[in-house]
């Protein structure tokens, strides 16, 4: 612990360093403002400011706001105050200068595409996964091999597609309502008497409650969580579903979206980006492994253990967009769905193959999943998604 950052002689003082540190945290995704800088400085007045341990604890309490930030705080603290952060800062800088290049134009120029393709040889992080169960049969089966080829999603999606899907998504999100609120609102045909109003109105009749205003439980929108399969067997539908997801996320501020193939990626933040083109760029980076194998059971299991605990509650509807071709054991999918179901949510599975004539859910994974589904429907075009509206309203 002897390493200490040497600030330059022209450094304007301790408070500037602390605000520099808050800026450093901000660069790493902490949602901090001026108010936090103020609180951070103030908090230092209440601890021994010369003791690095105490300062670290105090700033951690003030600056972190969730579990992830809380865990990575120590490293960021060391990197700023203990002379390990130089390199990191530089990386951030080059990123910034590169960013406008993407956002200024809405044309798909070829240099960017070569950029994206040039990353094929990036180090394989999930190499172990790729070797599992590689079935080399020439038919439509799920494969366990991770596709390391990065597909540029801009080839698949255009902002116009997203706009069209947004309309459908908004209608679907509105169709699913929750009718289990405990709060009550005034309503003419309510099921309960509104006492507050009764008292108020009875004043004019000398204490006789003549009119009985009523209230009832309002209907609320639900929280939609969409999980989209982008494995090899789903590539043909990926365009539709990704557009649908972007539409959904834009239409509904509480919706949540994930992609999965052999891994699970949360794409809510990327889709929420104001600039549609930049959002696609971010998505492309996240969707590494797009069009590869599918491990539905394992990814759902992971989902149940991580994100579902935070984002899925009794008010959620989990929307799964997948064909159900899975390389994992069907039991794993069944048990994973059981865990998710236990969160109290509704599960809807939209399967593009169900639209085929004479389709039976014979994929073993699909059969194992059926008992946990509240609805199992077909969806392979935007029109068929839109047609689901009345059915979703009944859920």
């Amino acid at each position, binding site marked *: 612990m002897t390493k200490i950052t040497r600030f330059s002689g022209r450094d304007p003082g301790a408070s500037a360093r602390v605000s520099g540190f808050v800026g450093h945290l901000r660069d790493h995704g902490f*949602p*901090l*403002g001026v*108010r*936090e800088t103020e*609180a951070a400085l*103030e*908090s230092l007045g*209440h*601890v*021994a400011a010369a003791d690095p*341990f*105490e300062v670290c*604890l*105090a700033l*951690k*309490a*003030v600056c*972190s*706001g*969730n*579990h992830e*930030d*809380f*865990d990575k705080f120590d490293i960021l603290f060391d990197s700023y105050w203990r002379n390990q952060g130089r390199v990191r800062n530089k990386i951030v800088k080059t990123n910034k200068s590169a960013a406008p290049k993407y956002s200024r134009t809405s044309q798909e120029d070829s240099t960017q595409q070569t950029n994206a393709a040039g990353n094929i040889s990036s180090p394989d992080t999930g190499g172990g996964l790729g070797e599992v169960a590689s079935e080399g049969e020439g038919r439509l089966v799920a494969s366990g091999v991770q596709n390391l080829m990065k597909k540029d999603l801009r080839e698949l999606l255009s902002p116009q597609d997203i706009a069209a899907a947004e309309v459908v998504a908004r209608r679907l999100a509105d169709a699913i309502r929750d009718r289990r*609120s*405990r*709060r*009550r609102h005034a309503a003419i045909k309510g099921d309960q008497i509104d*006492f*507050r109003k*009764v*008292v108020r109105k*009875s*004043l004019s009749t*000398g*204490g006789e*409650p003549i009119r009985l205003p009523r209230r009832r439980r309002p209907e609320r929108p639900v929280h939609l969580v969409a999980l989209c399969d982008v494995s090899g067997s789903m590539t043909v539908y990926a365009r539709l579903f990704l557009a649908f997801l972007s539409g959904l996320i834009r239409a509904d501020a509480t919706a949540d979206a994930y992609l999965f193939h052999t891994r699970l990626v949360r794409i809510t933040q990327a889709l929420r980006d104001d600039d549609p083109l930049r959002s696609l760029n971010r998505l492309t980076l996240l969707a590494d492994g797009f069009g590869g194998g599918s491990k539905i059971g394992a990814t759902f299991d992971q989902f149940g253990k991580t994100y579902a*605990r*935070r*984002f899925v*509650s*009794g*008010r959620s509807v989990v929307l799964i967009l997948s064909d159900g071709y899975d390389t994992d054991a069907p039991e794993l999918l069944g048990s994973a769905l059981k865990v998710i179901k236990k969160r109290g949510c509704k599960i809807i599975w939209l399967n593009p193959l169900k639209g085929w004539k004479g389709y039976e859910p014979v994929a073993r994974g699909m059969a194992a999943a059926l008992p946990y589904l509240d609805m199992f429907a077909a969806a392979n075009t935007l029109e068929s998604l839109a047609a689901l509206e009345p059915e979703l309203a009944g859920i």
Partner: protein
Amino acid sequence: MSDWKSLASQLAEQGYIASPDLAMALHISLKLGRPLLLEGAAGVGKTEIARTLANALDTRLIRLQCYEGLDAAHAIYEWNYQRQLLAIRASAEDGKTGPDVEKRIFSEEFLLERPLLQAIRQDTSPVLLIDEIDRADQEFEAYLLEVLSDFQITVPELGTLTATSRPYVVLTSNGTRDLSDALRRRCIYSYVEYPDRATELAILAARCPDIDERLAAQIVGFVQSLRREELEKVPGVAEMLDFAAALTGLGINDLNDDPEILRASLVTLLKTQADRANVPLEVAQRLAGKAA
């Protein structure tokens, strides 16, 4: 000794062993007068810290348990309608009318204070515990933000009631729902982990002072290794204390003495059927053997 360490030892006197993270967060939140938001798994002592803090500061604890659909009538205030109706009738018989009656029935006499209003109307600052905030709706969260930043509540009939004292606010969340960034930003944050071995031993010693030292080490070792098993519901600190109480109640000095007692006392730790099936007696004995 610095302030936050003395706070930690004050808590320890009340039987609560806080990690440095938590003690510092609490210290800062008291000093800056900001709410403290605690997250962590169930059973790590998030609620308990508020109770202990109230004891340590020798002040009242006011608790608001959140649930889905919690509304203003249950969190802030409600008019006492039955009394209001009676009062209207009574004054009608006395021949009083209009404004007089209205003024009377919408006075504080007829106001039922709920936790939030109670908390800001105390003479000395109480500890306000808002438990499981993630269970309440988002609308309520937004309202809470307003109360927590202004410390005043507006009752349309009475006007604005300002705080006579600022409560020390502790919010807890189990992470069933993502809290808004606005709420997080307004709070001092700490994540409470399951205690490590040494801390848990200290907790056990603080809560059950007369427990045998060797048995205490066994119990803590056993529970710590049980937490690493695949369980639906991981036993928390409260469960560990129950387990210790059960064992001392049954009068045994060694976990490995009697498998029947071990099996019987597991009911204090494993709370679902699946977990009971996952940890059969053999596994429990293996864990107990390792802990010894």
